[in-house]
C-alpha cells in the first residue's frame, strides 16, 4: 500500500463518536450481550444511546446492589464478564456492596458509573460523590475519565483487567459532559495496557518439585478452590484427570464446589468451618497438601497455628500475593490453574511418576474410617421439615436436569454447600468471601438471563431474601422463571446458632417477629407463591415449583431450632470438630475464639 493509501486507511479507522456512543460501541466490540443497570441523571446520554441499539439487552433491576449481584451471577455461570450501568452518587454507592463481593470472590465485572460534569467535580453537586475514591479499595482497578479521547482505551483496558490474571471488578466513572463530547474511538485490538502483565505461565522447576512431593506422599490431599472455576472449564477437566491419575483424595472450599464431581468416590466433600469430618481430618493429618486456586481463608484453616501441622504444602495461585499470606508453603506456583495443571500432568506422565501405593491404601483406609462417622447426618422428623431434608429432596427432584444454584448467606448456604451435589463448574453461585445476605436472589436473575432455559434455584433464608426482595419485580418484567426456595426458620439462623453456642442462648434481635406472608408477597409481584409445612407435602410442592414456568417464591417452613453441623468453633483446629449439639462433646469456646468472627 502506498503512503496515501495508508493515510486513508488510518483515517477510516478513526471513528468519531460521542462518549455515550463510544460506551455502546465498546461494549459491542467486547462481545457484551447483556447489561444490568438502573438509569439516572448522570447516565442519561448513555441510556439515550442505548435506546435503539440492537444486540445489547439491558436488564432493568430495582436497586443498584441487585444489578451488581445479577451481573455476578451472570459472570459466574458463563465465565464472561458481567456488565453494570448505574448513575452517579447513590447509584454508585449502592453498587459498593456488590463490588466488594466481586472483589472478595474474584468475579470479573465492568461497572460503568455516571458522574457529574467535569467542571462540577469537587463542588458537592447534586448526586455527586467521589466514586473513584469510594470504590478504590473495593475494585481491582478504577478510572475517572476526564478526556473523551481516553474513553475507548479505558473501556477496553477495563475489560482486559477485569477478566485476566486474578479476575475482579473494575469501575469506569464517566462524567456527563464526557458522554456528550465527541472524540476518536479506538477498537479493542489497538489497546494494550502500559504496565499490566499478569503472570500466567508456571515455572517448570516448581512444577517438578510439586510432582516429586506428590509422588513421595504417603497421606496426600488435594485442596482446591474458586481459582479452578475461574480458570475455566479446561482447568476443571485437567483437575479431574490429575486427581484420577494419582488416586488422591480431594476436598474443596465453598468457592470451588463443582470443579470436581461430588458423586466421585475420591471426593471428600467441602472442608472448613462446616466441612465434613473426613475432609477436615484429612487436611489436619496429611503429609502433602496440594492447594490449587484457594487462599487459606480463616473459614478453611480454623486455628492457624494448628493448621495441618505436619504437611509439606504446594500452593498454586495466579495471585502472587496469596503465597505465604496466611500459611507458609513449601512449593509456590504462581500461574493460571489450567496451564499449571497441564504441566503437572505432563511431567507426571513423562517422568513416569508412580504414587506410593501401599501408603495411599492405608491413607484411604483411614479416610473411610472418618467417613464412617457420617458427619452430615441429622435426625429426621415426621412432623416438621428439617432444612437438611428439604435440600436433599430439592437435589433428588432436580438432579436429572441442568440446575444452577445460588444462595444467600447463613445456615441455608452451608446446608446447600454440604448436601447439594455439584457435578460441574459454574453451576454454584454463592457469596463466599464477603458473605453478602441478599446475594442469591439477584444472582439467580443474572444466571437465568444467561441461561434462559435452565432451572435456576436460589436456596434462600427468609432473612437474607428480604434484603433484595425487590428484584422479584425484575424477574417478572423479563419473564425469568427463577425459583426462590426459602428455608424459613423465622430466625437469622446462623446468628441464632452462634448466640446459642457462644453467647449463652441470649437471642438478641435474631428473631423476626413480623415476617411477610411470602405466598401473598409472591402474588403481589405477580409471581407464584407456594408453601410447604409438613415433610409429606414437600415433594409435590417442589415438583409444582419446577413445573411452573414463572418466578416462584417457595416458603418452606423448617425447624426453627436446627443447627448447622459439623462445625469447627472459632479458634479451634480441624481435629476439634463438633459433630452435633447432642451430648457433652460441645467444647468451651476460648476467649480468643470469641474475638474471631
Amino acid at each position, binding site marked *: 500500500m502506498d503512503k496515501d493509501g495508508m493515510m486513508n486507511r488510518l483515517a477510516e479507522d478513526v471513528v468519531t463518536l460521542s462518549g455515550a456512543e463510544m460506551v455502546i460501541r465498546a461494549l459491542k466490540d467486547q462481545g457484551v450481550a447483556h447489561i444490568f443497570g438502573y438509569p439516572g441523571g448522570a447516565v442519561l446520554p448513555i441510556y439515550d444511546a442505548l435506546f435503539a441499539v440492537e444486540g445489547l439487552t439491558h436488564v432493568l433491576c430495582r436497586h443498584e446492589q441487585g444489578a451488581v449481584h445479577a451481573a455476578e451471577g451472570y459472570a459466574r455461570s458463563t465465565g464472561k464478564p458481567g456488565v453494570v450501568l448505574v448513575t452517579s452518587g447513590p447509584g454508585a454507592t449502592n453498587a459498593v456492596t456488590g463490588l466488594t463481593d466481586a472483589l472478595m470472590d474474584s468475579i470479573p465485572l465492568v461497572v460503568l458509573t455516571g458522574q457529574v460534569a467535569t467542571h462540577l467535580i469537587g463542588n458537592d453537586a447534586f448526586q455527586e460523590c467521589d466514586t473513584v*475514591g469510594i470504590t478504590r479499595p473495593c475494585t481491582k*482497578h478504577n478510572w*475517572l475519565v476526564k478526556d473523551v479521547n481516553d474513553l475507548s482505551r479505558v473501556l477496553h483496558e477495563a475489560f482486559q483487567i477485569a477478566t485476566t490474571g486474578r479476575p475482579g471488578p473494575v469501575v469506569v466513572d464517566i462524567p456527563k459532559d464526557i458522554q456528550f463530547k465527541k472524540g476518536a474511538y479506538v477498537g479493542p485490538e489497538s489497546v494494550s495496557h502500559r*504496565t499490566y502483565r499478569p503472570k500466567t505461565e508456571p515455572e517448570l522447576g516448581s512444577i517438578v518439585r510439586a510432582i516429586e512431593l506428590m509422588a513421595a506422599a504417603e497421606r496426600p490431599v488435594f485442596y482446591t478452590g474458586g481459582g479452578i472455576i475461574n480458570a475455566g472449564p479446561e482447568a476443571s477437566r485437567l483437575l479431574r484427570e490429575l486427581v484420577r491419575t494419582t488416586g488422591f483424595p480431594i476436598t474443596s472450599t465453598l468457592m470451588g464446589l463443582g470443579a470436581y464431581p461430588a458423586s466421585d468416590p475420591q471426593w471428600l466433600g467441602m472442608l472448613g468451618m462446616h466441612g465434613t469430618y473426613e475432609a477436615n481430618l484429612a487436611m489436619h493429618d496429611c503429609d502433602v497438601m496440594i492447594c490449587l486456586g484457594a487462599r487459606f481463608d480463616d473459614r478453611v484453616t480454623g486455628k492457624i497455628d494448628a493448621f495441618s*501441622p505436619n*504437611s509439606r504444602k504446594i500452593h498454586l495461585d495466579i495471585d502472587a*500475593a496469596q503465597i505465604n499470606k496466611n500459611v507458609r508453603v513449601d512449593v509456590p506456583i504462581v500461574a493460571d490453574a489450567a496451564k499449571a495443571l497441564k504441566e503437572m500432568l505432563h511431567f507426571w506422565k513423562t517422568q513416569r511418576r508412580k504414587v506410593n501405593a501401599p501408603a495411599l491404601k492405608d491413607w484411604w483406609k483411614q479416610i473411610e474410617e472418618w467417613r464412617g462417622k457420617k458427619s452430615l447426618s441429622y435426625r429426621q422428623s415426621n412432623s416438621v421439615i428439617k432444612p437438611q431434608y428439604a435440600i436433599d429432596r430439592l437435589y433428588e427432584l432436580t438432579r436429572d436436569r441442568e440446575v444452577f444454584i445460588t444462595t444467600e448467606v447463613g445456615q441455608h448456604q452451608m446446608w446447600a454447600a454440604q448436601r447439594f451435589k455439584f457435578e460441574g463448574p459454574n453451576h454454584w453461585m454463592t457469596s463466599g468471601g464477603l458473605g453478602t445476605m441478599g446475594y442469591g436472589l439477584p444472582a439467580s436473575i443474572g444466571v437465568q438471563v444467561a441461561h434462559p432455559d435452565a432451572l435456576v434455584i436460589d436456596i434462600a433464608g427468609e432473612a437474607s431474601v428480604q434484603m433484595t426482595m425487590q428484584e422479584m419485580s425484575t424477574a417478572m418484567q423479563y419473564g425469568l422463571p427463577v425459583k426462590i426456595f426459602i428455608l424459613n426458620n423465622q430466625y437469622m439462623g446462623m446468628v441464632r446458632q452462634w448466640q446459642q453456642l457462644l453467647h449463652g442462648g441470649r437471642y438478641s434481635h435474631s428473631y423476626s417477629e413480623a415476617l411477610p406472608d411470602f405466598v401473598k408477597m409472591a402474588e403481589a409481584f405477580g409471581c407464584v407463591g407456594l408453601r410447604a409445612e409438613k415433610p409429606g407435602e414437600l415433594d409435590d410442592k417442589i415438583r409444582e415449583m419446577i413445573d411452573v414456568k414463572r418466578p416462584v417464591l417457595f416458603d418452606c417452613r423448617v425447624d426453627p431450632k436446627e443447627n448447622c453441623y459439623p462445625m469447627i468453633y472459632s479458634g479451634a483446629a480441624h481435629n476439634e470438630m463438633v459433630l452435633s449439639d447432642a451430648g457433652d462433646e460441645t467444647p468451651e469456646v476460648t476467649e480468643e475464639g470469641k474475638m474471631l468472627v
Partner: protein
Amino acid sequence: MNTIADKRTRRHTIAVLVDNEAGVLARVVGLFSGRGYNIESLTVAEVDATAHTSRITVVTSGTPDVIEQIEAQLRRLVPVHRVVNWTTDKPGVEREMALVKVAGQGDKRVEAMRISQVFRARVVDTTHTSFVFEITGGPDKVDNFIDLMRPLGLVDVSRTGVAAISRGPEAM
C-alpha cells in the same frame, strides 16, 4: 512443615515505580492503611516526564512475612511498574533532607552553630535570635542532629522523608 517464622520487626526502604496518573498515590497509601501496614516516611515525585513515571519511596517496618506481603500487594496494583526493597533485594544508599529551626541566644546559639558544623549542616536563614539549618544524610544522622538541637532551642522541623537509590551502575 511450617518453618518457625521470623517474628523480628525491621525497618525496610521500598521503592515503587508507578505510572504518574491520578490517584496512584492514594492507591499506594490506601493499601498500607487498609491492610494495617505502617508508613514511617513517604516521598513521591515524577522522575521521568516523557515516560510519565513517578517514584515512591516508602520506609516501613515489619516482620519478614509482613514485608513480603507488602511487596506482593504493591506489585498487584495495576499502575505499578516495579517494586524494589533496598533493605533486602540489593544495597541502596538512603538520604533525607531536613530543615531545622533553632532559636536562642548566647552560649546555646554558639553551641548550635558549632554542632551544625560537625554535622556539615548549612545555614539557610538567620536572624539575631534564630537559625534555620539544612541537613542532609541518612535518617539516623538527621535524628541525631535533631536530638542534639533539642536542648539548644529547637523550634520546628520539616523532613523530606527518605529518597533511596541502588549502589553501583545499574538502574532500579
